[in-house]
């Protein structure tokens, strides 16, 4: 079975933060995981590259309060939008 989006996102987080994947919980914030500032921007980049998606251009994402689950949700949303866009064209 293909890994779920959550598994894939958690793997990218674990690699970026150099932590064991088992320590990541859906409710963990990026701050809890020790990911701040440039690390968070790199993480977003890694996720975008992995899924071939673009997160919206909103500046100032709140890395203190954003959770691992919120990243999973954002990936799902971007993939859904991409699929819808592909269906229309």
């Amino acid at each position, binding site marked *: 079975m293909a890994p779920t989006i959550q598994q894939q996102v958690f793997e990218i987080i674990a690699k970026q933060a150099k932590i064991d994947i088992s320590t990541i919980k859906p409710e963990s914030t990026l701050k809890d995981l020790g990911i*701040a*500032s*440039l690390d968070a*921007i790199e993480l977003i*980049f890694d996720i975008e590259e992995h899924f071939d998606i673009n997160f919206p*251009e909103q*500046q*100032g994402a709140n890395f203190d309060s954003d959770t691992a689950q919120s990243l999973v949700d954002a990936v799902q949303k971007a993939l859904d939008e991409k699929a819808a866009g592909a269906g229309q064209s």
Partner: protein
Amino acid sequence: MATVTTRRVVITGMGAISPLGVGAEALWQGLREGRSGIRPLRHADSERLRVKVAAQVPESFDPAANIDERILPQLDRTSEFALHAAREAITHSGIDFSRDGLGLRTGVVVGTGVGGETTQDEQSRRLYVDNASRTHPLTIVRLMTNASASQISIAHGLRGPTYAVASACASANHAIIQAAQMIRFGMVDAAITGGTEACLSYGALRAWEAMRVLSDDTCRPFSANRRGLVLGEGAGIFVLESLEHAQARGANILAELAGTGMSADASDIVMPNPEGAAMAMRQAMDEAGLAPQDVDYINAHGTGTQANDATETRAIRLAFGAHADRLAVSSTKSMHGHALGASGALELVAAIGALRDGVVPPTANLDQPDPACDLDYVPNTAREMPVRAVLSNSFAFGGLNAVLALKRAP
């Protein structure tokens, strides 16, 4: 310990190419009227880019105007801006470098964040996209970071210490401080200095997009709804002289560059630190012999990012204590955008204008107060008020801070 004699440094000429037009007066008039130079991005690749707005020098700017046509092929856009602004500043000051060998005792220090980015991008495209096997033969001459300083030196016969200074968004202020110190310690009698930047290339815009610090609508410094910085471009160039030199030739003195402060945060490569910024502001005031209550206006770094504006507010409180609540603070980046290595130079035009005319330019687009930004930012409309002394802040990625303290002409 040997006694070091130091000299006072004054500014006697200014020139600018900016999103608000050609000339320092066009820039200052635009700022005091609260006009914005931020527009939809003009770019050959704008359809592909996510960045939608920028503060660009208007298309009416003619790089070839009054420039020797044999020199033109040597120039990247950064040097075009710098040469035009330098000529304006030198004409404005009425200084004559051919007299009494003054050219031998005049230095040139120009700040730029990245130098000839447009050239680099064009030539890389030739190689990697068009599969060309050679670049333009003047590629190196155009893109070298010192090109602007060298072109000014050649155009005006200036043979003193000449070089570029690079410290990202603080480049212009660091350059101006270097030039001032050469005069202060007697190495030269005059200096041409400032900053220039023109890096709105496809590659650079993509790099800024990836960093997620760009606003998608406009620049709203200190406003709760701020969404990031808006990239700009341009140049500001100044004539600095020792006070005695300026007085001896009967020059019109615009302002005294009375103090300077430089520091490094030594903490994070991008996140600013209020202690480092406050240290540079204190140094500038100390060197100028200013107490906090002597300062009426701060031209803030004020980029419009979440991190800068709240941190700069804390830094001003650290440096000024109770007087912070009596200061007028504004970010003119809300109108001329963030010209990176040129930004401190464009902002020095604003600082001089405020001192000279008794008018503080506003912070445009400030419509939602932010509890983390609780100073008087002169929202949206300029304010007429007596201005005795000004600080002009520049803080750079890399944690580098450079602050100028200005007083009225003696």
